[in-house]
């Protein structure tokens, strides 16, 4: 049941980007129970374990998933689709955190049911502010969905 402790799941392949994000969250003590996955396929394996025994005990329910769109092997959009299709995970808030301001990506994400879409500013100051804002909002201000047993 250690997963229960995880509040934020960060799916981001670039370790530098991940570090910047984690640093920004840490500044506001929001990264205490953060899990970082750097590969799309790994993320899917973690979220939807293939072992039957593990599947039956699945009770993963973080307060927020931060998702990059450009991931190796499996894209962020694919992960988003799987998350929102599955009854067990579709209520988890997912925020796309990406460099892409492509209209198509934004449109597709919202169609799949994303909860927020943040374009990472190049400017570090703005970036730090944006990340901490969204961490504060989703972890503290937002009322998460009730746990389904």
């Amino acid at each position: 049941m250690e997963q229960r402790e995880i509040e934020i799941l960060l799916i981001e392949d670039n370790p530098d980007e991940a570090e910047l994000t984690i640093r920004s969250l840490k500044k506001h003590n929001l990264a205490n129970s953060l899990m970082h996955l750097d590969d799309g396929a790994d993320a899917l394996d973690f979220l939807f374990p293939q072992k039957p025994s593990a599947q039956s005990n699945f009770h993963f329910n973080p307060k927020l998933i931060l998702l990059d769109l450009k991931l190796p092997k499996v894209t962020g959009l694919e992960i988003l689709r799987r998350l929102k299709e599955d009854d067990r995970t579709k209520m988890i808030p997912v925020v796309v955190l990406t460099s892409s301001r492509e209209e198509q990506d934004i449109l597709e994400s919202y169609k799949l049911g994303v909860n927020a879409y943040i374009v990472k500013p190049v400017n570090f100051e703005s970036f730090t502010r944006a990340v901490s804002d969204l961490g504060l909002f989703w972890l503290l201000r937002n009322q998460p969905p009730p746990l389904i047993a």
Partner: protein
Amino acid sequence: MKDIADFFRQLIDSSDWPPRWHCGKWTEFHGWLYIISDLLIWSSYFAIPVVIIKYISRKQDARFIRLYFLFAAFILACGATHFLDAVAFWVPLYRLSAFVRLITGLISWITVFYIVKYLPMAVSLRPVKELEQEIEHRQKAEEKFTSLNAELDSIVIKRTAEISDYKYALDQSSIVAITDQKGTIRHVNDNFCRISRYSREELIGQDHRIINSGFHSKAFIRDLWVTIANGKIWKGEIKNRAKDGSTYWVDTTIVPFLTAEGKPHQYIAIRADITERKKAEEKQELLASIINSSDEAIFSISLNGLITSWNRGASNLFGYSPAEALGKNISMIIAPNLLWEEDQIIKKIVKGEYVEQYITEKVRKDGSMVHVSLNVAPIRDDDGKIIGAARIARNITAQLNAEKKVRQSEKIYKTIASSIPGSVICIFDPEYRYLLIEGDILGKLGYKKEELLGQKAESALSPESYSFGKPLFERVFRGEAFSVERRVLECDTLTRYVPLKDENNVVCNAMIVVIDITELKKAQNGIEELNVNLENKVVERTEQLAIANKELEAFTYSVSHDLRAPLRIIDGFAEILLNDQADRLDEEGKRILGIITNNARKMGQLIDDLLNLSHLGRQEIITTRVDMNKLLKLAVDEQLLFYKGTEPQIIADHLLPASCDHNLMLQVWANFISNALKYSSKGTKPVIHISSRHSGNNVVYSVSDNGVGFDMKYADKLFGVFQRLHKAAEFEGTGVGLALVQRIIVKHGGKVWAESEKGKGSQFYFSLPFNKQLSLT
């Protein structure tokens, strides 16, 4: 009135008086005398009318019947009063008696009235004796008359027999009709009926108009009538029309029969059938008129060479009138050097031979020569002896000339036909016979001119070729012009079938033109092949383009995502270094880190601008009616939000509306305003003036500023990507803004340009096509 009413009520009441026997003194004798007399009168008065009416009812021709009846009624009524007088001796019906007397009186007076009226007439009837005398007298006269009559009859019979003999003779020999003085037919004989083909019933009662042929003039008919109406005999030849429409000629004599006063009361017309004679005459006249009216010269000569007849055609041809020619020697129309011909002809004629279509020259009156075709036939008298020669001469000068022309034009045709390269031209008659065939590809098509010319296609062509050609021949001779493509041996041909029509627009011949189109075909096939190749290439290129486009999209996506991330990381970690390790850095280190972050941000901006620009290439523009005043305000407000320089003065005229993409046009305005603000001279108050005007079919918008301006030498570089006319240290910018503006404007079908003088501000213009509907809305 009461008295009268009582009177009638008691009409047969006798109670008021005693019977007459008891009235006064009556002896038996006196009384009975009275009674019996009255009854006698009454019975006789009763008998008289009965007798009268019985008599009248038998008599058919009785006149004055009403008078008889009145008289009968009068006597009957008188009788009735006497009867009542007699009865009164026993039954005194004095009221009835009075009434009957009244009636008797009335009838008597009516009778008087009628007698006054009719008696004079009745009295005028002659007495019987007188009549008897007259009858006797008449009987005597009649007897005398009968004897005279018998005498007369015998004379009449004798005369009638005589007349009927004449009549028979007349009827047998002549056509006879008798009409009254008005011309109405009263009698016709069998001959009349036979020749006119009308029955006697149809003719009697009609006048002679029924057989009028209309041939004779009104004057002729009038003369006839005037003659006979004056009692004179008319003779003449008349053409009549029979019932079946045929006509006949009669030699006619009309004899008027006169009354004592000398007026005609009837006419007898005696006719003889002269139709045959007339027909013969007409035929002869017709022949003469034909000969005379003929354009051909027809004339005859005696054996010794004298002209005996000379028609109009001869006059026209040789110039001599009949008067000038008749009796003259034929040698006058013969050239001296050709006199031998005449001798030859006469020699033949004398032998009873004919000369036909002898072509020679004759001399006209004016000395000119004329080509003639001469036919000469012997003339025989009734005994068959040859007495002369009849000649027909036809002027064939025109014909000879025409033939010459035809030969010439035929030669021209042949020359034309044979000199058109790569063709064969044939002319066919309606039996598909080759009248003309020329052309240089005849051999190539496998034919020889000698084998075809003058031959029918049926026999000259192979069965296969003929069965192919026959329906086409039939079509062209139906008047249709058309073309057929066909490959013959090694030759592609285009054959044009053209009907040739005579002056009456009837197809008389057909022209067939065969053109060798082998090379043309080859070229055509080549073009078709090229076309197919070209199409394939287009498809190929389109596919390639689509792939390139896809690649470009992927590229821009990568740029958008991947180029930005490292920049953020550079910026991020430089910032972290600057913040977290600040105490370990000296001023120089901090300055260098500042340069790193500054450039990272600039590159981020550059990427965004480039993305924007490439994005625009793929974007569809959505045009709506845009209020440029509102749009400008939006752009200005946005730009002022980030502007930190001297408070600018922005003068915006009222702008014309445009048909354009709202968001893209907002970018245009934003770029111009931001440029105008950015390039304002340092320290001076920026003044920006925005206006618009019509220019032809466009609207031109302009943005003027009082800024630093630029050198017109570089005006063409203004709108290029990454082209900058100022140093980055002077004015910030990526050099993409105006390139973006140009792209947007060009996409709208407009133009963008600028004018400036260095240091004196610049004017930027852009035009958009003006949609007329905009001004209406």
